[in-house]
């Protein structure tokens, strides 16, 4: 048995064990409250069963699966382009980011490398979808805590990014643009200039968020010191993305991960925060949006000329093999493990989604917190139900 020395983890395990035994002692029945599945707070159909003692949470248990759509089974009977069009819908806010690790894995099995122009534009769209996703988080954090205005600003400024994605791919939410060997089409004339203008608006939005939300004393009182995740606990539960960077861990797959996207050619920095509380998670994501704007600007300036698609056959048959590729998606680390037996369809695709691991920490984290803090913590962990349930 591995040694567990964290007292909170011990208490949680003891609580589980005591429930399992037949308990003759009448425990003072705390109130059991169902948060969800239909609820304005949870980002979708998540159900959290909390046992309350007054306003304190004694035990919390997330129950997932209300939105399970059977992706991994579906991919066994869909061809590679069809799978690409379906997996857009896993993380529906930054949807281009879902396609990239799958396409990279398939390209790795085939031994095909996309031309440099395709890699640059792929990275560009990846960062644009990160901006679209995290901008919504910044507004949403406000609304969970009661401020109704930031979310409108978020939707307003996010529309510009979505319009740019639509101008290239044809779809605002579901681009379906990545193909094995490159991208479906090239970018239209004038798009780089327009996108640079949009970046100005996003930067202005970030400054507005600083004034309206970050510096707000009420917001700070609601998020500072709430839901502190120590780095080692976070890593043991498999947290990734901004959640773990807010606990001080300097780990970002864009810099430390494999190749396929052109991050090594850009000048950018990884943001961390030592505190690990809700405020830190919010603050790290705010800085990441600004950093993503800088990266998009550098990417726009340096797109190399060349073909947009490598030489691949029209009907793709991936040779037998397997590959696992993870990338730093807006929600965290997303990975696809693709096994192919040489058919038109993959044999098995296992999707490692970030939110599923992020939410596994909630039973440990929510114990002993107040009910309002439950909402603050869940908002700062930032999960998308499509990403949890697939």
């Amino acid at each position, binding site marked *: 048995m591995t040694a567990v020395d964290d007292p909170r983890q011990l208490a949680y395990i003891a609580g589980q064990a005591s429930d399992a035994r037949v308990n003759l002692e009448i425990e003072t029945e705390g*109130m059991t*409250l169902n*948060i969800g599945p239909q*609820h*304005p*707070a949870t980002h979708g159909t998540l159900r959290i069963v909390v046992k309350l003692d007054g*306003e304190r949470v004694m035990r919390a248990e997330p129950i997932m699966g209300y939105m399970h759509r059977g992706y991994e089974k579906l991919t066994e009977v869909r061809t590679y382009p069809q799978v690409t069009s379906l997996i857009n819908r896993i993380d529906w806010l930054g949807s281009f980011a879902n396609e990239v690790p799958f396409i990279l894995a398939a390209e790795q099995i085939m031994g095909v490398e996309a031309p440099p122009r395709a890699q640059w534009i792929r990275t560009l769209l990846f960062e644009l979808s990160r901006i679209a996703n995290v901008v919504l988080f910044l507004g949403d954090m*406000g*609304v*969970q*805590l*009661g*401020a*109704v*205005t930031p979310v*409108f*600003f978020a939707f*307003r400024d996010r529309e510009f990014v979505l319009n740019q994605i639509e101008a290239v791919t044809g779809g605002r939410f579901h681009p379906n643009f990545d193909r094995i060997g490159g991208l479906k089409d090239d970018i239209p004339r004038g798009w780089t200039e327009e996108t640079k203008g949009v970046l100005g608006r996003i930067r202005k939005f970030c400054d507005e968020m600083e004034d*309206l*939300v970050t510096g*707000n004393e*009420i*917001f700070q*009182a*609601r998020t500072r010191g709430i839901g502190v995740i120590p780095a080692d606990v976070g890593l043991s539960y498999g947290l990734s993305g901004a959640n773990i960077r807010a606990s001080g861990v300097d780990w970002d797959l864009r810099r430390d991960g494999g190749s396929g996207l052109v991050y090594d050619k850009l000048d950018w920095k990884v943001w961390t925060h030592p505190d690990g509380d809700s405020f830190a998670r919010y603050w790290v994501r705010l800085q990441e949006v600004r950093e993503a704007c800088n990266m998009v600007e550098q990417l726009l300036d340096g797109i190399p000329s060349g073909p947009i698609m490598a030489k691949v056959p029209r009907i793709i048959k991936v040779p037998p093999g397997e590959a696992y590729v993870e990338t730093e998606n807006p929600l965290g680390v997303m990975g696809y493990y693709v096994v192919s037996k040489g058919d038109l369809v993959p044999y098995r695709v296992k999707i490692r989604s970030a939110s599923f691991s992020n939410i596994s920490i909630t039973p440990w984290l929510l114990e002993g917190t*107040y*009910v*309002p*803090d*439950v*909402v603050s913590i869940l908002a700062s962990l930032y999960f998308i139900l499509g990403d949890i349930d697939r």
Partner: protein
Amino acid sequence: MSDFLTLAVELAWWQQTGIRAVVGLVAVLLPAGTLVYLFLFKMMSFMQSRLGPMEAGPHGSLQLLAEVGKFLQKEDIVPEKADRIVFKAAPFVVLISTFLLVLVIPAGPDAWFIDVDTGIFLALAVSSISVIGILMAGWASSSKYSLLGALRAAGQLVAYELPLVLAVVGVVIQAGTLNMQGIVMAQATGEIFGWGGIGNPFIFTQFLGFAIFLVAVQAELTQPPFDMPVAESELVTGYLTEYSGLRFLLFFIGEFATAGIFAALAATLFLGGWYVPGIDPTSDLFNVIGPVVLLGKVILVSFLIFWFRFTYPRFREDQLQQLAWKVLIPLSLVNIVVTGVLKVVF
């Protein structure tokens, strides 16, 4: 009111009472409707870069009428395990406190409902009735969400009664009377360092009291940043969860009517009520333009209340209580002491 009407025409007792009842209803519902439209529909939308309702009537002005129609035709649902009598009575208890509050506010030198010597004391005492209504609503709904919301509300409303009352004490010391008409007259006929041009609205000297009063009013109305009882993202409107249709409309209108009435109280205590500088305070002209002036000041104060509402996130319950007990009450006590000392000295 009785003096004004007997001057013009002799009316029977029941006719006078009927007119008073109608005017009372209008006095409550008109500010409520105006506030809902101006601030909830329009100002909130402008602060969020959008236009708000534009279709019902010119620039959406009849939207509230459409909403009333919508609520009227909804199904009347009472939860199965609910205590039916208490459940149905709760909105009326909350509304009773609003209607009783409007009685003491004067709208002109002769345009008042009742003129008692303990006007402001009566108002503050009556405003606590709404707490009972909220507790009734939460308990009778037999739902865990409602119960949590009602208990939070009870704690919050009782805690913020004290800063509300203490902030008013400074005004009373300066005016020298509890009578609402007397307070308005004191501001109308007062002088600032010997200059009587604009009277002496108490907001200049009682700015701290005004700030505390506004914060306490925000909490009494359970508006953000003090809206834990109706925290939408956690409790799905708290004690209101099980109310739908007409009953919800009663709570909704009650909330905005109370906001209007408290704003009128603040306008009367701190801004001079129905008085506008330049006209003799005892003239008959004020009976006509007094209500209009009061409505204008109500809109001004409500602008502040709703501006805070749309900008700030909400406090957690214990932070809320800390603010009331550790910050507002000591500040208001300091205000009272300073006002008393200065009143004696000057």
